[in-house]
């Protein structure tokens, strides 16, 4: 499609005017179904690997209509102008795959500020903004750390255990200890 990089230009071109005029892209599209009541579920996908379905949906039948967050005019055609809600795919006739891509593109466009977004009224926060509390200000260092070189717990540095403990361990594991097993580990 020649409009791959700038899909919004297609909506102002002669071909688009000739094909659709002023009405939205999905105007006049009808599903083909048996019986009087149309199916109440949208088709899952129009373009599968293999041949495309007969009577594709409004977005799949025109290869120049690309769902991109920057072509706001196309996205606007699928949003209700009165309530700001995205139309149901059964109403517009598009397949579920396109509807999912369309919803993502509309969310992206609203995020970038290209589409109208409902802004809820958030009342002004009433809290203390002085930032004096210790959680967000400075705290004095702990007593264990005030001198340089001291660690938080005394056992961070290696300490010689009491002699009776060492003797008890030696007695327990005397069959497994080699000769000359040292009391202090080599540093």
């Amino acid at each position, binding site marked *: 499609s020649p409009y791959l990089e700038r899909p919004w230009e297609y909506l102002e071109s002669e071909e688009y005017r000739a094909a659709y005029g002023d009405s939205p892209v999905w105007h006049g599209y009808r599903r083909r179904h048996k019986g009087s009541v149309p199916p109440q579920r949208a088709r899952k996908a129009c373009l599968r690997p293999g041949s495309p379905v007969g009577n594709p949906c409004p977005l799949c039948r025109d290869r120049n209509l690309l769902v991109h967050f920057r072509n706001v005019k196309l996205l606007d055609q699928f949003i209700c102008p009165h*309530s*700001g809600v995205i139309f149901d795919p059964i109403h517009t006739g598009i397949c579920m795959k396109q509807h999912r891509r369309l919803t993502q593109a509309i969310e992206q466009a609203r*995020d*970038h500020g290209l589409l109208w977004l409902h*802004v809820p009224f*958030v009342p002004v926060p009433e809290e203390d903004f002085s*930032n004096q509390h210790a959680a967000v200000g400075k705290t004095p260092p702990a007593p264990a750390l005030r001198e340089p070189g001291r660690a938080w717990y005394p056992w*961070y540095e290696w300490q010689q255990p009491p002699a009776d403990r060492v003797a008890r361990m030696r007695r327990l594991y005397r069959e497994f200890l080699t000769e000359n097993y040292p009391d202090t580990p080599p540093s």
Partner: protein
Amino acid sequence: GKAAQPKPAFTDEAVQTLLYKMTGLDLHKVFRPVKKGLKPPHYKLMTEAQLEEATRKAIEEAKTKLIMPPVLNEREPIDDVLAEDKVLEGTETAKYVFTDLSYSIPHRERFIVVREPNGVLRKATWEERDRMIQIFFPKEGRRVIPPTLFKNENLGTVFQQDRHEDVLNMCIAQFEPDSPDYIRVHHRTYEDIEKRGKYDLLRSTRHFGGMVWYLVNRKKTDGLLIDMINRDLLEDAVSLITLYHMLHPDCQSAKEAKEGKLEGVDLIKVFVKTESQREGYIQLALQAYEEAMATSSGS
């Protein structure tokens, strides 16, 4: 010299009354229809007394909606190391964030600390704090990652659609009042409004006071003055100049006004002669206003 008086703050009563007067109260703008789900219309039959009661209630509700958001200085970044435990170096590959989740403490007193892989235990930065608090205590209208529309490139597109009020409302919902992003977005919006002269977009909203405070502090009041005179809001123009004199008591027009105890149009004329950059435009606007007054009083 004279004794240095403390500079008036945004929260002073005198300043707030002046700003509230300038904001105006247009009920049709405050309660304008918003796009939402369609419902059939609802009619009420009321007597005169009931109508007055309903208008009074509407004015009170509008006053709560017009409470001005606070104007604060940028917050100081937090960098406080609580402990350095070299013992833990190399044991983990990721940072651990510990958040105090007690329900009843205010968010600004909540302790949030980060243990880095190199063993350092430090307090979390402001951005980390905001993210964690939003994850555990979600607030309406606020997202964990702020929308891309607050970046400088995307603000231009929104301003072209004249949606300054929406941007400011979203900013209040998303950021804390003393965060650098909040201040940056607000300053950008005010600059854009002042450049285009679209002061009427914010009139009767809660953001008008903040905008006037910003402009008066930076002495960019000419466009606003012209707009007020063109819309025949002379009391607002007088209160704007009073506020200017309160904030800059050393300027020449303030001294002349104090000596001569000027009121009304004379005050504006003195201000225009001494302090403004766009004298010609303001003189023209004043002339047009006086002619309109003369014709209306004469006929």
